[in-house]
């Protein structure tokens, strides 16, 4: 069953950027695309568990800051070595107050 957890406010994330979110021991990453859609993935690169929140967001791509592994954060798809294992994604919804919720579980 999905639990909706408030993660941040929309204003907390710049356009085409990422912020970290920690909940109950888990690390997540929340994204705001350049067309103001919100997405969420696991917070660590699947290659060597580097925090993605320090990485570069380009369009719908997140690039890991350690080895430049890339993922499509909207689908989690790994886009080439050294990222070869997909990222787990989570559903996101934004309520009327501008709070971004991530669906966990």
């Amino acid at each position, binding site marked *: 069953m999905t639990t909706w957890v408030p993660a941040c406010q929309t204003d907390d994330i710049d356009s085409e950027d990422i912020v970290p979110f920690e909940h109950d021991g888990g690390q997540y990453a929340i994204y705001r695309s350049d067309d103001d859609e919100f997405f969420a993935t696991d917070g660590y690169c699947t290659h*060597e568990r580097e925090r993605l929140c320090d990485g570069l967001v380009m369009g719908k791509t997140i*690039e890991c800051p*350690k080895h430049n592994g890339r993922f499509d954060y909207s689908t989690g798809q790994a886009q080439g*070595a*050294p990222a070869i294992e997909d990222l787990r994604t989570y559903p996101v919804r934004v309520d009327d107050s501008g709070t971004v919720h991530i669906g966990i579980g």
Partner: protein
Amino acid sequence: MGSERLARYDLTGPEGQKAVEEGLSGVSWFRSAIPRKRMKELMRRSDEHATKNTALWLGSMALSGAIGAFTWTNGMLWAAVPALAAYGVLYGSASDSRWHETGHGTFFATRWKNDVVYQIASFLQMRDPTIWRWGHTRHHTDTLIVGRDPEIVAMRPARLARIIANLVGLIDVPTALKDMVMRATGRLSAEEKTFVPESERTKVARTARIWLGIYGATAVACVATESVVPALLIGLPRAYGACMLYVYSLTQHAGLGENVLDHRLNTRTVHMNRLNRFLYCNMNYHVEHHMFPMIPSHRLAELHEEVKKDCAEPYPSLWAAYKEIIPAVLKQLTDQTHYVRRELPEGAAPYHEPVAV
């Protein structure tokens, strides 16, 4: 990746396992604190800069190669030698930094452009693009961690004869060709299997076969034309043009700390002139590059300004760097515990030292 290593540095040996057990592998390294807004500016990629740079590099190669081939064929050695010397450095040395930057995916903003130049540069360097991508990834994870890093050139003690011989590719080139033949049969070395995932290995055989085909065609062209010119243009420049590759790359880590977790202890930044920085793609800012590998090379000078408060003074020149490197490496021939440990400026974040596990 071809080079024989001293036993300690063998990636399948006990030192690598010891490094993992001691908490030296795959852990966090020191990074200077830079505001996220500034980092985003610095990380931004540019097709414009990379396109101009690549056009200049390949254009210079084409021109010097054409002049070299024409003058050699027409017996004008006085012109052929300098032309081919320039061609050789552009082919055999400058391709290393292009291999490096496009391998990181940071040279161009457009991914496929990085991939194309990466394949070209890998061919020129005789480095299998799959194996070396994964090997370089390991180098960034475990920089100069003994038994884990496949790219340690100056070991302790350094194999000086090999290093000197490789200034003209005398070891690297035959080894690369031997490895190419092995890989064309689908085999990887035991060391390579430690860092190349199984799912990635099928590409290696295909690449090796294509490359052997190109070198084979080059040899046939030499026979058909009764001239060494085809080989002077394809393959041999990796040997006769390799000197600057080693002159630059030895400044990166030689003589510095092993098994440390701070790039300020095992990496150098060296100021260089514009020509060297063009040939080397600004990789003279090597501390900066290791600290923040996602910053494209043309922004490294700016990054240097952001982190210099935490770093030892850069070396003012290649000459200054080698005045340190040569005595350090020579001392390591008899004292393998010796390394150069630099003083940090006042106010710098202290060195991040390994914690005994």
